[in-house]
């Protein structure tokens, strides 16, 4: 330590060695809840969300789920409506917990949610299809705390759960869920708050993969001349291998998985750079491969 350093230290608003905020404080807790209400981007289909990334209007989750055995619906002792497909529990404070473990009984889930004060439409959309867009105007200013995006169920290796605070619903708005069981054993679920009226789901071929490919193609190629990955043909290589190269070059990255693929391994389809994320940032488009 010398005088120059000591002088610099006197300029620090928060004294060196001292912490700024308290992780147990209200600010820290609110921020943590806000951030983790969404699925992290990697290994989910981040690109399906519109920018800005943290728009509350839309949350998408891809969760792993194995096929479930179908058993009849029952009303159990705790007042929880259950079927093989789902369970919906309402607490006295208006909070509804929804657990979906299989994705066949969308109609039953939809009507049970309505009974419990959740204005929701649930559509089952087969893989390779999507509901024709737009179905309705999306709500941009979603009430804070209305819901948390689908999360995995602790201790259960399939399905997802989410928490909805029914007291925060405003008239004229409907929760629109679309669930797509994936042939690989998982499911893709989107939960979007829309303004009434919401058009019924008209199934059309799923062109989201093509749109993603087009969207990527509009950014600058990372592997082309002068790109961050110049001289490294990333296309067709396994994701893990490409990420090692990114690490070696000190580059940040995120990746988006193309819907509709089959298999366990992720292979890079395209590598682009986007200066909005920083000068050293590469976005990868990947697909699953056998």
């Amino acid at each position: 330590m010398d005088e120059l350093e000591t002088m610099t230290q006197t300029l620090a608003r928060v004294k060196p060695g001292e912490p700024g905020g308290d992780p147990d404080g209200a600010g820290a807790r609110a921020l943590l809840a806000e951030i983790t209400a969404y699925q992290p981007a990697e290994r989910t289909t981040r690109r399906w969300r519109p920018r800005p990334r943290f728009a509350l209007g839309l949350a998408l989750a891809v969760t792993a789920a194995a096929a479930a055995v179908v058993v009849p619906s029952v009303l159990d002792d705790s007042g929880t409506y259950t079927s093989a497909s789902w369970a919906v529990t309402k607490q006295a404070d208006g909070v509804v917990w929804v657990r979906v473990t299989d994705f066949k009984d969308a109609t039953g889930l939809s009507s049970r949610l309505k009974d419990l004060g959740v204005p929701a439409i649930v559509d089952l959309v087969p893989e390779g299809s999507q509901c024709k867009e737009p179905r309705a105007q999306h709500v941009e200013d979603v009430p804070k705390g209305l819901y948390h995006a689908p999360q995995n169920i602790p201790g259960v290796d399939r399905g997802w759960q989410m928490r909805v605070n029914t007291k925060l619903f405003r008239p004229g708005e409907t929760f629109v869920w679309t669930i797509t069981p994936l042939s690989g054993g998982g499911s893709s679920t989107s939960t979007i708050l829309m303004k009434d009226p919401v058009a019924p789901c008209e199934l059309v071929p799923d062109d989201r993969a093509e749109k993603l490919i087009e969207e990527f193609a509009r950014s600058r190629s990372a592997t082309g001349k002068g790109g961050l990955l110049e001289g490294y043909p990333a296309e067709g290589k396994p994701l893990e291998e490409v990420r090692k190269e990114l690490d070696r070059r000190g580059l940040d990255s995120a990746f988006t998985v193309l819907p509709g693929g089959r298999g366990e391994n992720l292979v890079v389809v395209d590598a682009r750079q986007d200066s909005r994320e920083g000068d050293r940032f590469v976005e990868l488009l990947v697909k699953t491969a056998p």
Partner: protein
Amino acid sequence: MTEERPARFEAVYRQTYGQITAYAVRRCAVPQDAADVVAETFAIAWRKVDSLPDGEQALLWLYGVARKVLANHHRTDNRRRARTVELDAELTDLYAAAPESGIEVEAVARVFATLPDDDREVLALVAWEGLDREEVAAVLGLTRNAVRVRLHRARKRFARALAEAGVRTDRLVSTEGTL
């Protein structure tokens, strides 16, 4: 392991929150900017939770992210952030406790503000965050040698600017030679 992510992220968040907020507050003129930087830094960390390193490295990694967020702050002003009212209020409190004052400190602050961004950052990471050369290298994505050179030059420029501003520099100038 998808189920482990929230728990892992929360552990890193709790462990580094004090230091990341301090980092932002030390570098932003107003609490709202600091809150933006903190919120955006942790939001990026959550997006990239799979590449978030463990242990001590997590803090250095987050400093690196915070630095980029700070640099891009003006460019991304139109982005909606996860910032909350509670966070703004909490950071505002930190601004209430003024740093040391006095004629000399104010003069030093003025000189410090005129230094190039890269100089300020390397000096601050050492003096404010208390990082050693290797840690600074990890944050800035440079080699240790590059950090040594950059720090040496930054200190030289800082000492010279202080001398020009009339801040007593007798001892400062001599420290230059010992680097």
